[in-house]
């Protein structure tokens, strides 16, 4: 396969296994490109991309912008905090105004689940979902599974546990879809209050004992506790959360095998993982960040190749 089956990247659930394979193969090439003395290729010099961030982001936004610039696309940035959205403009109006300035692709982060899908039905540009509420964050799941493939050779047959705040996490949902599509076994682990009620319907297992989960897995993806999304208390204190669901070097060293530690960032050091774990050889957190640029270059390149001239 040399072409994606979709015109937008709205979520992993809309992709086929072959799409992911193509994105990974293309990302391999871009990973080589971004390690050259000159890290830029001219492929997208006639493409304009708007990054619309209706929600705060540092890493994802930087990563997308860098990926776009490495492909020579023209980039415009927009953040909701300093825009007409504050004056009451609707999403479609905002986007159509931007598109009338001849923009070919929109990378959007939005607090409402389904915002990307909605937009793709109403505007004529290619849409990349950079996170929509607690729904999906497809490029994060792609870079996470790409990093697993890089470290362990393949994703198929690997046991991955996603630890922490599953309830508020778009990273968890996209990761579950991406891992399953590539043939990995998935478990989630966290306080019961932070596990969605019907999560087992997705074909994954649930574990509330972190030690058991870590002993079972090859990879542990430690999610951030999303305090900003919690209107109520889901656990008594950060200290208690850390004692039950935090990973420190002592726990890691006491396991039968050497597992891989991942974190989508930003890390609350000392809450989900301690500093010595984050900085250890078992952690691939910075690889994830580097792979993020290559994966986003691949996604944008492949979607751009489907835009009609």
């Amino acid at each position, binding site marked *: 396969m040399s*072409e994606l089956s979709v015109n937008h990247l709205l979520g992993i659930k809309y992709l086929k296994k072959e799409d992911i394979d193509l994105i990974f193969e293309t990302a391999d*090439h871009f990973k*080589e490109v971004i390690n*050259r*003395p000159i890290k830029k290729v001219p*492929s*997208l010099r006639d493409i304009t991309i708007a990054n619309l961030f209706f929600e705060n982001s540092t890493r994802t936004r930087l990563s997308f912008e860098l990926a776009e610039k490495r492909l020579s696309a023209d980039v415009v940035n927009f953040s909701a905090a300093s825009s007409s959205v504050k004056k009451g403009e609707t999403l479609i109006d905002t986007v159509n105004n931007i598109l009338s300035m001849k923009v070919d692709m929109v990378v959007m982060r939005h607090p409402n689940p389904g915002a990307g899908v909605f937009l793709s039905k109403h505007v004529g540009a290619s849409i990349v979902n950079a996170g929509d509420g607690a729904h999906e964050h497809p490029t994060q799941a792609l870079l996470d599974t790409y990093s697993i493939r890089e470290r362990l050779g393949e994703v198929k047959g690997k046991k991955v546990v996603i630890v922490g705040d599953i309830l508020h996490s778009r990273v968890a949902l996209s990761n579950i879809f991406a891992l399953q599509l590539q043939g990995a076994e998935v478990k989630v682990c966290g306080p019961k209050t932070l596990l969605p009620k019907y999560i087992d319907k997705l074909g994954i297992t649930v574990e509330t004992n972190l030690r058991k989960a870590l002993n079972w897995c090859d990879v542990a993806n430690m999610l951030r506790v999303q305090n900003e999304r919690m209107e109520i208390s889901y656990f008594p204190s950060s200290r208690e959360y850390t004692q039950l669901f935090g990973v420190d070097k002592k726990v890691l060293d006491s396991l039968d095998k050497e597992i891989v530690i991942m974190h989508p960032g930003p890390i609350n050091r000392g809450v989900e993982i301690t500093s010595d774990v984050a900085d250890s050889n078992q952690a691939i957190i910075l690889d994830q960040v580097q792979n993020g640029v290559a994966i986003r270059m691949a996604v944008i390149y492949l979607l751009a*190749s489907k835009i009609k*001239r």
Partner: protein
Amino acid sequence: MSQKLLLSAKEIDIILHRLACQLIENHTHFKDTVLIGVQPRGTFLADRIKQILVNDYTITNVCLGYLDITFYRDDFRRGEKPLEANKTHIDFVVEDKRVVFIDDVLYTGRSIRAALTAVQSFGRPLEIELLTLIDRRFSRHLPIQPNYRGRQVDAINQEKVKVHWVENEGEDAVYLINP
């Protein structure tokens, strides 16, 4: 569709030896010279040239790399088929080196134009030369000519020149294909 044999295995072998000798004439010890096969089809020819230099002329320090030009092409989003990338493998320094691009067929010159841009990402070479097995004359879109050419071919536009290699197609041969 009809196809005509342009070069046989024997003829290709003679030409490859001649091209290798011409390279030696200009680059003697290959101290500051690097060979770069242009992906996807130039790599077979580049491998062969290196083999001849090493085995028949005992030049052992030949640096050989592969360069993919997909992301530098000027026909992105213009063709029917999407462009597929190949591996770039250059594990040496290009800066201040004498680079020899190697490709099987020189046609419009657009691939070489892309390769000239692509190689700049690795540094500033001292000079760049071009070696091709087949030079389709009268069909150039750009002012690009080879420094070393195997055989010059006159072919009309809808005709195709296809180079077969033992490693890939099971035989060494060059065909002129009329669709």
